[in-house]
């Protein structure tokens, strides 16, 4: 992993996530950085990808010109089906999600609280059109929820907070956060650093986190 004074790149964040996923895991990936996880599957491991619109064993995007408008993912982009794939209807697809059969879901976030609450679907603004998709089902049903996101918003506002101000997607659901600055566990004692990005200090991460931050190894 190349060093970077300003923290990890999007690709490195995805690679960090991929390192923590065990061989044989069934995974559902959100849009954005989570999608990059597929590029960093550690050697010797195999992941099986689920997309909530009815495909297990999802493969990469097809070559240009090979797209099938009826073979898409939850983000409505053209995908492929790998050997061993299966198609099923939405009822069965959410049996996999709600029933706890998916091992890991990796999502983006607007805010994450110190107790693992996640807000990633709405700013709650008066003129916003609510649109939740499958996010609430995923966080309620999947065994392990990882979040990967920039540590702060574009204007520098912390995304890791004591209590979310945006409407929640789920309560107490996030177990680990992979940002550009650090990997952080949500523990019974709150946010705790698991690993700092090369060249990033604990103090800097703490300053950009709007909640108490425990250093690595404490409680």
């Amino acid at each position, binding site marked *: 992993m190349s060093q970077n004074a300003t923290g990890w790149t999007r690709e490195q964040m995805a690679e960090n996530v991929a390192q923590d996923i065990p061989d044989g895991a069934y995974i559902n990936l959100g849009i954005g950085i989570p999608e990059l996880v597929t590029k960093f599957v550690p050697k010797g491991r195999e992941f099986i990808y689920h*997309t*909530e*619109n*009815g*495909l297990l064993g999802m493969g990469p995007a097809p070559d240009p010109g090979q797209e*099938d*408008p*009826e*073979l*898409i*993912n939850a983000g*409505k982009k053209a995908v492929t*089906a790998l050997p061993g794939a299966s*198609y*099923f*209807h*939405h*009822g069965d*697809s*959410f049996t996999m*999600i*709600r029933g706890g059969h998916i091992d890991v879901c990796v999502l983006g976030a607007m805010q994450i609280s110190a107790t693992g*609450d996640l807000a990633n679907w709405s700013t*709650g603004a008066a*003129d916003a*059109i*609510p*649109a*939740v*998709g*499958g*996010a*609430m*089902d995923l966080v*309620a*049903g999947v065994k392990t929820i990882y979040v990967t996101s920039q540590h702060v918003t574009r204007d520098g506002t912390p995304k890791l907070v004591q209590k979310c101000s945006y*409407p*929640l*997607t*789920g*309560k*107490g659901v996030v177990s680990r956060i992979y940002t550009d600055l650090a990997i952080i566990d949500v523990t019974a004692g709150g946010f705790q650093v698991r690993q700092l990005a090369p060249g990033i200090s604990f103090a800097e991460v703490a300053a950009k986190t709007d909640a108490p931050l425990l250093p690595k190894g404490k409680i």
Partner: protein
Amino acid sequence: MIDKRIDSIAAAVADIPDGAVVMVGGFGEAGSPIELIHALIDQGAKGLTIINNNTGNGEVGLAALIGNGQVKKMICSYPRSSHSKVFPELYRAGKIELEIVPQGTLAERIRAGGAGIPAFYTATTVGTPLAKGKEVRTIGGRDYVLEYGLTADFALIKCETADIQGNLTYNKTARNFNPIMCTAAKTTIVQARKIVPVGTIDPEIVITPNIFVDRITEVTDPLVESHLIAQGAHYP
């Protein structure tokens, strides 16, 4: 011999009345019964409640039905898309109602409606604004909200192959909401890319058994929504 074929798309949707609740299959453009939707635009029924995961794209298919002022209320999980302008404008103008339902709860409510389950509990939305006003119950130490089964007067469905009695198969991720919607509507209307004789589809691979299907029309070469949008098409 039972034969559920209908001569024309127009005839297939002719009796959908004003105010009907209509489930429309498809997730994005995959599995969207675009010809049946266009026939419903031609037919002109108003005040409809539409159940679909989204609100359509561009100005064709479901988006065109909404744009034509025929829809009073949408029940969906995600009323936005990169090419959807119609719904947001009507919604901001207060001209269309929206019931937002998480995608998995939407699927399960439809499945429950079709299966004679009037209500069920789910952990989805617990602790979020979407649980507001809903009954919460603790079962085995975890909180769940009560959700109700959804049924419809009609379902508009796209499938790949149908036999003339209504056994259906689908194409890849075009399956999505279609099979569960077939079970939850009083009258299920299907556009099939291909209609085949009874006995042609192996009983082991039937996805929708014929008991859930009422009318079948053949649309051999259906419009492709994304192609239409790339061309800037609009309907009518």
